[in-house]
Structures are given as C-alpha cells and as structure tokens.
C-alpha cells in the first residue's frame, strides 16, 4: 500500500549568503563560502536537496588565551601564540572558515595586523569578533573593516545596544555582520530589522540566535533556531538569514569540558567527554538549523564534518 508522504510546501526560503571574496570578486580569498539557501526544515532531502551544506568555523584568538582548557592547549600547541600559525593549523584541521576573536588588550594597530596576517596565512574566508565591549569593538572593527575593504569578512558581534557603528562600517566596506540576540525569536528578528533599517543589504547578515552548551540551556537555542527557521520558511523576510552559532565557545566553558579532576566518576574519561560535549552540542544545533558552527577542537571538527556529509546526501 503506497503511502502519500506529506511534504511541506513553504512560501519562503533561507537567503544564500556568501562569505569571503576571491580576487575576481575584489578580495584575496582562495575561495568563498556560501551558506543558507535552504527551502525545507533542515536536511529533509525528500522535500528538496540542501543547496549549501552547513560549514565549520574554527575559532582562534589574536593573543594566546590563558583561560582555555588544557585539552585545547594540548592540541593547538605553540600555534596558539601566533594567530597566523593557528589559522593555518585550523585550515589543516578541516575548517571551512576562520573566526578570529580579538581581545581587550588589542589596540587598533595590533588588531589590523592580526587580521592581515591571518588573511595572509590562509585562503579561507574570515569572521572577526571584537572583544565584546561596545566601545572597544567599535574602536577595533572600524579600522579592520577599512583595511580589508572588499574581503567580505563577517564583522561581529552586533547586539541591539551596539550595532550602528559596526553595520555602518560593514556597509561602507563591503563586509557582512553577525547579529546576535539572546536566545529569543523576537529579539533576533528585532535586531535583523534594526540592521536592515540602516540599509544593510539582506545578503550580508548572519544571525546568531545564541546558544547554551549541552546541559546549560542548549535546548532554548535549539528551539529558537527551529522557530526562526520555520518563520523564515513561512515567508517572514526578517528571519531568513543563515544562522551562526558558537557551540565550541559554549561547550568549552562548561565544567564538563574544562575540568579533568575532582569531578564525578560517572562523567567518564575527560578528553572523550569534552569532545563529546562540543560535538553533541554542535550536532543538535545543526539538526535545528545552524548554517555555521564555530568549534574549537579538531576532533569535534572531524566528527561534525562526517555527520554533515551524511546529512546532505540525498
């Protein structure tokens, strides 16, 4: 007895957005990365093929982070002290994109230099995050934006209290922005509206709905992403942006990943658990619609890459 499989017909779709520009496109990247474009809930190949697979960004810092888990220090080694080296190693580890996170200690000159050196060391498209303090972000990101005009970087992180300066400089220099709202469908959409109202082209916004790590509020991010995706497919233009999330940052903050000693025996082997924590946070978010996941450990990258390959096969 043949069953008629119910297929959802949607009015809207996710915008396809290209990060990075090759020399032909006015930049210096070896190749650009396109994400988004989906027309179904994630990976429902029986409704329509996934046009662009989700990608993995590896997060590196402009200065050697002192507070990262020893497990990460062990795997990245000396490269952590040199962002160009680190970026190169990240590319070898399978990254599709690099996230360069700046720190409060950086001055504009250092920051521009760090960005340039990363761009020189790898051909991957680049996402640059300010240190997360309004004034400092603006102080660092504006000169970076100007010095890399045409590269189609993603500049971040825009939040509803501080978005104007970053959006303005991204608009003027042909970059994209990462728009972050705290785990709420409405707040995400509101920020997208505010950024669009400034005249930012709609193919230059990545939305970051914020997530928690597994066990630390991941489910809220999970549902927010599902809801944003549903709203986008239903035709709500202000939610049709590809989503970027940071499971690496979130997972490696947790005690489960960070701490090896003095924890319950029932938590099992430290390293395997830490990698599982990052991997499972990431896979759940991919299932709920993430287009870019930012990770930290090469082993998680490898496993997520394999999962993505499976998910996008028809």
């Amino acid at each position, binding site marked *: *007895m*043949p*069953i008629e*499989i*119910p297929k959802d017909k949607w009015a809207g779709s996710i915008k396809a957005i290209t990060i990075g520009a090759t020399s032909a496109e006015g930049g210096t990247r070896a190749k650009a990365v396109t994400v988004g474009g989906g027309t179904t*809930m994630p*990976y*429902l*190949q*029986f409704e329509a093929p996934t046009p662009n697979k989700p990608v993995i960004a590896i997060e590196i810092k402009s200065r050697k982070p002192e*507070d990262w888990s020893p497990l990460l220090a062990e795997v990245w080694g000396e490269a952590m002290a040199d962002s160009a080296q680190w970026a190169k190693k990240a590319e070898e580890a399978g990254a599709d994109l690099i996230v360069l996170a700046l720190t*409060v200690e950086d001055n504009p000159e250092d920051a521009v230099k760090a960005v340039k050196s990363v761009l020189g060391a790898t051909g991957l498209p680049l996402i640059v995050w300010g240190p*997360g*303090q*309004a*004034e*400092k972000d603006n102080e660092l990101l504006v000169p970076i934006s100007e010095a890399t005009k045409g590269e189609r970087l993603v500049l971040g992180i825009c*939040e509803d*209290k*501080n978005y104007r300066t970053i959006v303005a400089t991204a608009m003027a220099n042909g970059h994209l922005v990462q728009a972050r709202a*705290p*785990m*709420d469908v409405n707040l995400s959409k509101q920020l997208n509206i505010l950024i669009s109202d400034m005249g930012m082209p709609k193919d230059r916004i990545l939305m970051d709905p914020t997530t928690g790590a*597994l*066990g*630390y*509020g*991941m*489910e*809220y991010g*999970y*549902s927010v992403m*599902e*809801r944003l995706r*549903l709203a986008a497919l239903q035709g709500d233009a202000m939610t049709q942006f590809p989503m970027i999330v940071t499971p690496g940052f979130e997972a490696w903050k947790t005690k*489960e990943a960070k701490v090896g000693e003095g924890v*319950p025996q*029932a*938590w*099992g*082997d*430290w390293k*395997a*658990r830490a990698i*599982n*924590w990052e*991997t*499972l946070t990431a*896979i*759940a978010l991919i*299932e*709920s619609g993430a287009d870019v996941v930012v990770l930290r450990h090469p082993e998680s990258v490898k*496993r997520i890459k*394999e*999962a993505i390959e*499976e*998910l*996008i*096969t*028809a």
Partner: protein
Amino acid sequence: MALSGIQIYKMLPQTNCKECGFPTCLAFAMKLAAKQVELGSCPYVSEESKKQLAESAAPPIRLITLKSNGTEVKVGNEVVMFRHEKTFYNKPGLFLRVKASDPDIAKKVAQADAYKVNYVGMDFTLNGFAIEADGDASTGSAQVLSAAVKAVREVTKRPLILIGSDAAALDSSLSLLVNESTLIYAADSSNYESLADVAKKHKAVLVVKADSLDDLADLTQKIQAKGVEDMVLDLGGKNLSEWLARSTQARRLALKNFKPLGYPSIFFAAQNGLDKEAVYAAQAIAKYAGFVVIDTFAPEMIYPLLVLRENIYTDPQKPIQVQPGVYEINSPKPESPVLVTTNFSITYFAVANEVEGSGLPAWLVVTDAEGMSVLTAWAAGKFDAERIAKAIKGFDVASKVSKKRIVLPGHVAVLSGEVEEELSDWEVRVGPREAVDLPAFMKQALN
C-alpha cells in the same frame, strides 16, 4: 482536531454551577482545551458533547510501556513535530545492547545497571538492556538466549529488549520474564506471524521492521489484525539523512492520524560504527526516536546523551531559565563588585550584557527565582531577602571576594534592610532599576 475554549464552552451547560471546581463554565472549558482536566468533572455535560469531545482528544502516537518487576519506561503519546509547539512528553528509553553469547554478560550488565549520574539534582541511569540472540540455531541459540536472560535478570531489574528472529527461542526466554512487558525485536514480512503469536502470548511489545514506510504500514496492520496492539517501528535508513527523513515522515503521518504508523520507533546508534555512535544517538534523541540502543558502555558518552535527552524533553513552555550560580563577568578579581539578579534568562542577559559591554569586571550572583524576572519574582515572593542570602551563602560568594558588598537591583530597594539582617557581615547597596544604568552606577557609586 483540537477545540478552542470557546468552542468547548458552547458544548457545556453554561450554568456556572462551580461543581467542577472552577468558577465559571468558560474557565472549565479552557482547562479542558489545555487538557489539564477531565470532562468527567462536569456532572451535567450531555452525552453528545461527551462524544464530540472524546474524539478530539485521542493521542496520535500509541503509548508504549515496557515493564519489569523493578522499573518501567514509557514512550510515545507525542503530539507535536517541534518541541516548542507544546512539549515532547516521554523521553526515549536508552538501552545498552549485549550479546547473549558474551561470557561477561552478567558483569557488563551489572556494571551498566549500577551506572548513575547526577545532573542538576536529578539522577539519570540507563533504562534497560537489549539482549541479542547472536548464536545460530544449530548451536542451540534458544538455550544461549535463555541463559543470558536468566543471567541478566539476576543483575538488573530494568526492562529488557530481546533481539532475535527465532520465535521458539524468544518464546522460551519470555517465559522467564513473568509479569513483565518486554520488547521483541523484530518482526518482518517473513516471520511476523509467528512473532505476533509469541508477543500476544506474553503480552510483549513487538518491533516491526521493513524496508520502506509503505511495507511497514502494511505489516503493522497485518500484525494488528492478529491481535497485537503494542508495536514499535524500526524505520530502517542507512545513514543520518535517510533516518531523519523516515523518522520525520513517520511522525508527520502519525500526527495526521495515520494509524498504521502511530507507534514509537527504535534506533540502533552503532549501526554504522562505534565512532559514529554518539552522533547517531544524538540525532535519534532529538528527532523522535522512542528507544535508542547503544553498544558501548562509556560514561563519557552516556552522560552527555542523557543530558541531551533531558534538554530536548524539558517543557519549553516554562520560562527560560539560567542555572543559578555565580557568573564571572570580565574576569572579576576579589575586589570586584557582587551583583545580584534572578535566573530568568532575559533578566540575566540584560544584566550580563550591560556589564560585559562595559568592560567592568563583576561577580554576578544569579538566584533561583523559578525563572521569573526581578519584579515578578519579588511580587510572587520568590526573590526576597531570605533567598538572596541563601544564594550568597550557598554559592560561597564570600570565599571569592575581598570586599563583602552586594548590589541589589533597584526595583527591590525595599529589601535592603532585610538583606542586611540576613547577611550581617555584608554591606548592601542598591543599584539602578534598569540594567542600562549599571555601568554608570558601577563606575560612580562603587568606587
């Protein structure tokens, strides 16, 4: 179809007699619409309304219960595709597969049975074990299976899944499991008749397996015709994408009241290798599986999977909360200020983002206010001096700071006196009412 409160109200007597325990018929109707009360509480409802209301309430996915003499696991009864639409009700059962021929079977099961991990005050364990009859008939698989079942039953009280295709072997093993509800894996088009008989005889639940949803639906109907009501689906699918598609399709069909697929499903996480087991299990948990079977007893994998399951099956209608605790913002030092707020996520983010954005270091103490904002929690008595003091003491904030001074949200300025009484060695300061004014306050008032 679900009816709205007003629609149900129109089927009720509309006398506001209060005998149901609600102040008006409309109040009762809305509780009915939300499935929070039974229609039986109304003594005066007409037979016709009763019939109409019952039809709108039948669950689209059958509730399946596996039972042993120790514990039980319930799956199914789900009503939505996405957890935000309502909630996912019954967490998938996590089972560990062991081979009947494994000489260490009792030891392995005993170890896994004892596994217990605590997550925010809740103890999680595995839900049961799947015993696979792995010998072939010629080596006396029936005896091997029976021996394994006996051995396992001696070390665990949890429900079991028996994996095998030999009806006689399953029959004799099930005879050992009196008064239990066991899951049999699996009936296919070649053996369903004999397995259905066994399932019926032992009141067992039967997994049904086929290569396509079409065949699966055919088979469940045939088995149902043989008198077996409790079934579980093995949807097949050779990789993540295919299984996701089938699981989604089956759920959709079931929610559209397509009864032949209105059963929970079972998924084997290690089917494509142990290196993929965790990721496979994660997808199955997120995407509608009723039972997830793993092959590896590894706490470093089981703990995150159990947490994932808890997260996905948390009721999303409850306000978004953050974990109560002490949050470090901008690498605080002992002399940095201690700010207090509640664990409603929006409140937490409003405060954390303002402070983070200012670059000023601080300790942010998040109290357990049952997920309410400062004002709401205070109004409801969930954010008072006692609770604040309990948080400060409980999280041992004093050990982290050199200056014992806490800053209360301006909205609860009235609490400052009581907090001083509760925390006599602390200086209590009242901060601004709005998070947006925090940075200025921290710069001016706290130095």
